[in-house]
């Protein structure tokens, strides 16, 4: 089971990095955001497991369903990372 989880983690980690970049660039591209809102969402990247889903679902991003689902990928990847760190998988 462990190799499967490792593989899933690797794929999700790569996807997570891509989502963080996609989130950041999308925020910078939002002409409808005020400067304060853009600074807020940009700073929010430090809390990316929470802010990316928040941005996707309630941040006015109007992302299609696929991206909304993918917005939780960084959070899942981070959770798996800490699961490995704390030996959850034995």
């Amino acid at each position: 089971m462990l190799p499967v989880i490792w593989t899933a983690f690797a794929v999700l980690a790569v996807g997570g990095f891509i989502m963080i970049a996609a989130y950041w660039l999308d925020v910078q591209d939002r002409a409808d955001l005020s400067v304060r809102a853009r600074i807020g969402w940009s700073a929010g990247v430090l809390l990316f497991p929470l802010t990316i889903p928040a941005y996707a679902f309630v941040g006015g991003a109007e992302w299609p369903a696929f991206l909304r689902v993918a917005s939780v990928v960084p959070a899942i990847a981070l959770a798996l990372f800490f699961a490995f760190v704390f030996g959850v998988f034995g």
Partner: protein
Amino acid sequence: MWGAVRVLVRSLFDVRVSGLEHWPRPPFQLVANHHNGFDPMLVLAVVPLEPRITWFGPKEADFSRGFKNRVMAVFGGMIPYHPERITLPSAVRAVRRVFAAGGVLGIFAEGRIGFRESELLPFEEGAAAFAAASGVPVVPCAIVGSTRLWFRRRIEIRFGPPLRTDAVRGREARRELDARIREAVAALLPPTEPPLPRRQPLAWLTDLLNGADDVARRRDQP
């Protein structure tokens, strides 16, 4: 490698193709309009892997500099052209080698990217010259929807009926061929600019593979 690119491009964008039945037996020349650095990949995402398309005309001679150039260097299948260092006859020789191998030459006849879906920029001399020099048919191609890119944008790759070039001799005939090619590509374009949606998710994809000069030109657009 190309399989992965096709999956990636078709995941990012909703790419549709029409007119593939117009493709003659290779060799032939594909003449397309140009809106974005993604254009070669958009075409390759929807056409058969064989015959292979070799793209003519990336102007950057040094493929080790810049993100766009590095991407192009990884994928290969190009004949770089630098007007100050490579003469037209030597470019024609390189093109003839593609045709001699039964390949397809792809060329963006405008020579630089345009920013309107329904209009063409003036053509450079290469498209008609290569076709006339080699006598291969020209397949007009219109890429519709790549001026601005966003996640899952619908992009249409349209191919028109091939144009014969085997009886083209002399400057006047080349000019007439150039006009025919332009007319054939223009006929595949939409009559008016399509409306853009208010929100364009991941709109930064538009300039991801565009050169700095193209980005600057877009910024200066009215």
